[in-house]
């Protein structure tokens, strides 16, 4: 049984980002350039609608969709925006700075996977 350690998703992926998908939804992309890192995250099974909802402290029914896209070595998760883009008190016109809780999610991967050391 290989040993595992916890690595931040942001240290395994090449890109973790958030963006508007229209005025009412936020979409998050996780993309990998190292296939072994993508495979490790995929096989860990811990990246899913429920875990992302937990990372943001929201109910899982606020997640509108979750996709794994092997051809792009990517995961994509979309949530209903808590408040419509530019409604009173809303904070992020482009939805581009909502990614950090996703980036900080801990993923159990084999100790042979070292990850980056950048976030």
């Amino acid at each position, binding site marked *: 049984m290989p040993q595992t350690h916890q690595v931040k998703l942001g240290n395994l992926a090449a890109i973790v980002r958030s963006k508007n998908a229209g*005025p009412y939804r936020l979409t998050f992309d996780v993309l990998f350039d190292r296939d072994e890192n993508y495979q490790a995250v995929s096989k860990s099974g811990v990246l899913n609608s429920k875990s992302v909802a937990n990372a*943001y402290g929201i109910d899982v029914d606020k997640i509108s969709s979750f996709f794994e*896209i092997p051809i792009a070595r990517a995961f*994509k998760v979309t949530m209903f925006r*808590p408040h419509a*883009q*530019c409604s*009173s008190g809303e904070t992020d016109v482009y939805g581009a700075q909502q990614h950090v*809780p996703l980036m900080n999610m801990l993923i159990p991967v084999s100790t042979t996977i070292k990850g980056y050391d950048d976030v």
Partner: protein
Amino acid sequence: MKQIRILAPTGMLGAGFSLDALARGMAMRPDAIAVDGGSTDPGPYHLGSGTPLYSDEIIKRELRSILPAARSMGIPFIVGSAGGAGTNSQVDCVGRLVHEVAAEFGLHFKLAKVYADIPKERVIAAIERNEVRDFEAGFDLSKEDVQACSGLVAQMGDEPIRQALDKGADVVIAGRACDDSAIASFAIWKGANEALSIHMGKILECGAFSAEPFGMDVMIGVVDDSGFTLEPGSTARRASLKSVAAHSLYERENPFEQHGPGRVLDLSNCVFEQVDERRVRVSGTRGKHTDDYWIKLEGAKPVGYRSITLAGVRCPTLISRIDTVLEQVSEATRKRVEDPSLRIVCRKYGMNAVMRELEVEKRFPHEVGLLMETTASTQDAAYDACNAMGGKLLHAAYEGQKNTSGNIAFPYSPRVQNIGMQYEFAAYHLMKVESACECFPIVIEEV
């Protein structure tokens, strides 16, 4: 079928591109130049107010590069979602700039303006016929919502732009258009595969955002019978599997389905190939027309005039009580400016101002940036409230206070800025139409 080459100079007209990349792209002999001119991404302001996203001078600077290049090769130039939101007044604005630049260069051609404002009566009649449904707004569109809109457009498909090309247009300035359709319209008009053209349009509409390094710059797409090939104009960029795949996910929800006016694309069988160092080929895109033709409505309504004031807090005695003190100050402000329309929002940069309820980090920072905003039915009321708010916070007394001479650091005099009428989205719904072109009238002008 022969290849059709489309050059997208940038991701949004006004966002800029390099002249070298344009020259190199033009040397590849494109069959048309097409560029996206807008989006809902910058928010509802440009739709609600009609104010263009970029200044006239910035748009003219780009037209001075693109128009003479297109005319010298005798190829069409197409702009979708002109002016930022693609309202009629924004189409007319970009149309006027086209006339001015053409006059500077002594160019003559046929200009088509394709309008996308939707009359309120048209939408209300559709609501009465049960032909409007929610897209993603989360509410049913009411007649009152429609009446409240100061800007109301719909996204056209490629058909109205093709109709303009049928009429002999050399330059097409289109109002709100589905991004991919505006870029794909010429290729479809020339008989290219519709699904491939639309998929290529979706990637080209962001210019060189699908390249690496990504940026607002020239991107070229070449569509043929079995696929399309992407190449950036600048030799400092390349299209890679990673950059194109990443872009295929960008600012959209479903990576395998792409909905647009009257159609849906199936991307689940797409194949991406690295043709050479700088080019990526995409194939396998499928598409079909939908039984009914629905267009997406976008509406924005005014919500009041706003004033803002920016201030920094450094003292830990206030940072630890900031919510309580802001609540007191808001209360006192409401008593001072008794306007029932008044709304107060305090943003505490350093303390959850970016993510609000999605924030999970709870540590206290050593300083906080406060952005206090007031919104009211008149600019004067908003100004008075914002000014009162700043003054009252500056001299608020609170438990545990050490510094009694002033609680906040204002960077500016005057401390209050009036930022004018504000808008919110009021419609983001689908409306059924009988034909793709019925809501998008075309006006032809000789330049």
